[in-house]
């Protein structure tokens, strides 16, 4: 007991002597005090910024109980506090506190300490008093980064940069990764690298929200990949655009990127320049899986009946078709071709219709039929082009294309 009493006195020197004595009294009674002790003992170890070496502390640090960190059972939710940034061996003390109650303190004292700790009534200097930090201890494991963000320099700086931690912590192992990183050593280098590549400042936040794993990628690997892209004659702005719009791009190895680019060139039969434009417009193509793209390509040829050059034209204008939902694409095409009676060549000229929602196209077409203005053949008078049909907002559509008021359109919609 005397041993613990001395520890208390060292570490809460701001507490008056009488209080210390009282607390020593209580120590002898309740077990709950062990937890309080644990807290008090941990307090001093929590400040990350200053070097806080007190005499008492040295004794503990000289002892290594080997239980530095809990095993990283980092599943999706669990985030275990890392050693570097946040806490010294907290579990070490917890185990101690649990083991302590029954054992003889005198024997422990002999086992663990070489130098005798100072007396309880010893006064410490102002500087040491100022360095005492009395904050509550951090939880050992948590499902959210909220508990650690105030005390961790890395996390605070990421939040100020604009990274959405509530989304990042939902990704597998991402929270654990961020906690282990050190801002000065790891994060800063990679952020500067991304800025060199051309990602804007305001884009860095969303970028890291989508792909926090890039902070763990090797710097040489990142540089090799950017060099590879430049060797394929992608300009600096093109690379910047690709990287900022597809955050996972630089997490892919060079072989994989090569594979993908080769696939697009051979399968789609596009020229090198056109492949480059396609990939710059929709860099997601390089990061997604290739199976859906192959299936979409097959579907366009076989089911929808477009010729090869027509598909190439459509894809150059609207690359999103390659990643679109097959069922929705078929339904839209079915309505456009069979119900509205639009032939393939007009659809090739206006592929934007595949982008829009089927319901919208249906409602507008039915309204035009009701008014008798549904004319999609360029040869006939009062022809309505497909891009005007879908791209405009409702008011513009009503006044210019349908030549009716918005109220009439709404009344018509309620009769559908």
């Amino acid at each position, binding site marked *: 007991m005397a041993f613990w009493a001395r520890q208390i006195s060292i570490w809460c020197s701001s507490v008056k002597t009488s209080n210390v004595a009282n607390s020593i009294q209580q120590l002898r009674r309740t077990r709950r005090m062990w937890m309080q002790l644990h807290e008090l003992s941990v307090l001093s170890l929590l400040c990350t*910024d*200053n070097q806080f070496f007190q005499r008492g502390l040295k004794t503990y640090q000289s002892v290594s109980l080997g239980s530095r960190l809990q095993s990283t059972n980092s599943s999706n939710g669990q985030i275990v506090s890392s050693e570097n940034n946040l806490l010294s061996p907290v579990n070490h003390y917890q185990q101690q506190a649990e083991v302590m109650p029954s054992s003889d303190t005198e024997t422990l004292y002999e086992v663990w300490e070489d130098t005798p700790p100072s007396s309880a009534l010893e006064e410490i200097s*102002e*500087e040491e008093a*100022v*360095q005492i930090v009395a904050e509550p201890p951090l939880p050992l494991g948590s499902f959210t*980064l*909220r*508990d650690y*963000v*105030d005390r961790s320099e890395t*996390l*605070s700086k990421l*939040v100020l940069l*604009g*990274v*959405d*931690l*509530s*989304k990042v912590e939902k990704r597998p192992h991402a929270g654990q990764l961020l906690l282990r990183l050190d801002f000065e050593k790891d994060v800063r280098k990679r952020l500067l690298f991304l800025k060199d590549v051309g990602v804007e400042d305001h884009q860095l936040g969303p970028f890291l929200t989508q792909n926090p794993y890039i902070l763990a990628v090797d710097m040489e690997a990142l540089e090799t990949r950017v060099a590879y892209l430049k060797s394929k004659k992608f300009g600096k702005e093109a690379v910047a655009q690709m990287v900022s719009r597809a955050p996972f791009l630089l997490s892919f190895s060079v072989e994989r990127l090569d594979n993908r680019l080769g696939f697009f060139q051979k399968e789609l039969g596009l020229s090198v320049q056109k492949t480059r434009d396609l990939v710059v417009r929709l860099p997601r193509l390089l990061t997604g899986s290739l199976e859906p793209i192959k299936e979409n390509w097959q579907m366009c040829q076989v089911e929808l009946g477009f010729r090869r050059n027509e598909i190439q034209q459509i894809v150059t204008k609207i690359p999103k078709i390659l990643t679109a939902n097959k069922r929705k694409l078929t339904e839209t095409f079915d309505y456009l071709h069979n119900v509205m009676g639009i032939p393939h060549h007009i659809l090739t000229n206006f592929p934007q219709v595949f982008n829009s929602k*089927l*319901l919208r196209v*249906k*409602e507008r077409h039915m309204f035009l039929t009701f008014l008798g203005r549904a004319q999609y053949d360029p040869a006939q008078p009062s022809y309505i082009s497909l891009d005007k049909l879908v791209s405009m907002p*409702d008011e513009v559509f009503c006044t210019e294309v349908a030549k009716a008021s918005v109220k009439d359109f*709404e009344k018509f*919609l*309620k*009769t*559908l």
Partner: protein
Amino acid sequence: MAARRAARTGLNGLFAVYKPPGVASIRVRDTVETLLLKELNSLEQPAVQQQVRFLPTTVEGNAGKELTLTVTQLPVLAAHPLVRGPEFTHLKIGAGHRLDTKSSGVFVLGVGHGNKLLTDMYNAHLTRAYTVRGLFGKATDDFSDTGRLIEKTTFDHVTRDKLERILAVIQGTNHKALLMYSNIDLKTQEAYELAVEGLIRPMEKTPPLITAIRCLQFAPPEFQLEIQCLHETQQYLRKIVHEIGLELKSTCVCTQVRRIRDGFFTLDNALLRTHWNLQNIRNSIQDSKSKVKVGLQRSLSCQARSGKRHTDMDQVAESKLHSTEGMSASDLTHKMR
């Protein structure tokens, strides 16, 4: 913070949306919820909470550098929206009488405390009105024009007169069934009072009953009917159209089922897809509050009066009733004499 809480408290009650055809009603409910959440979360954010902290700093003191504590106010990052996540993640929105994917029309939704009123509306057993379009000459397996074709017939012999005769027969049989299921002895004074107020209808679960049916348009091969019914499903209405075709010694498919009234929510109250935002929904809830209150209360009092019906006194707070029901009830009282 105040603006957001105020916006959220206004969202309690019933409102009607117009469900477009081809979309499942659950998706409509989910879309409305997503849109409302997006708007609520985008309202102005309060300033991040500040916390007073004492940080150790080095200052030039009397004897060289010394450590002191300085007071600073720092934002508490744990309360920052980027760390905490969006404030509203879920809204309780319940759906009233559902519409299946192919049909369209008035679809009642309840939000927040209004979900309790949805139960009351269900227990009030109010009627619903539909317009149904049919097409002569075809018969399909699911009674609608998108099903697999089974039979084709001629329909030159069909006239409006014959159609109306069939509709009268349907209305008559359904009316008899209505009275039977209502469990009312027609010779009592109580029955007369209920009939005068226009309320004779079954107050528990029954098979579908048609209270009124009439022909709006007849232009062969197409025709349009208006049907007022109780406890129905849209597939039942399509089956009725098919049976009308069979009775007329031809065949018929149903091309459109559209609900124009659900209890006391009509087409005018229903919000179109383009108007699904916070402000419009709040206005709609506000407007329909009084109607709902009056109507449900009437229904509760009538249910309490007639001893034969089982009502839960605790549940029904207010109920609006069928001023439009009067149409079917007056037919009823007319036929009773």
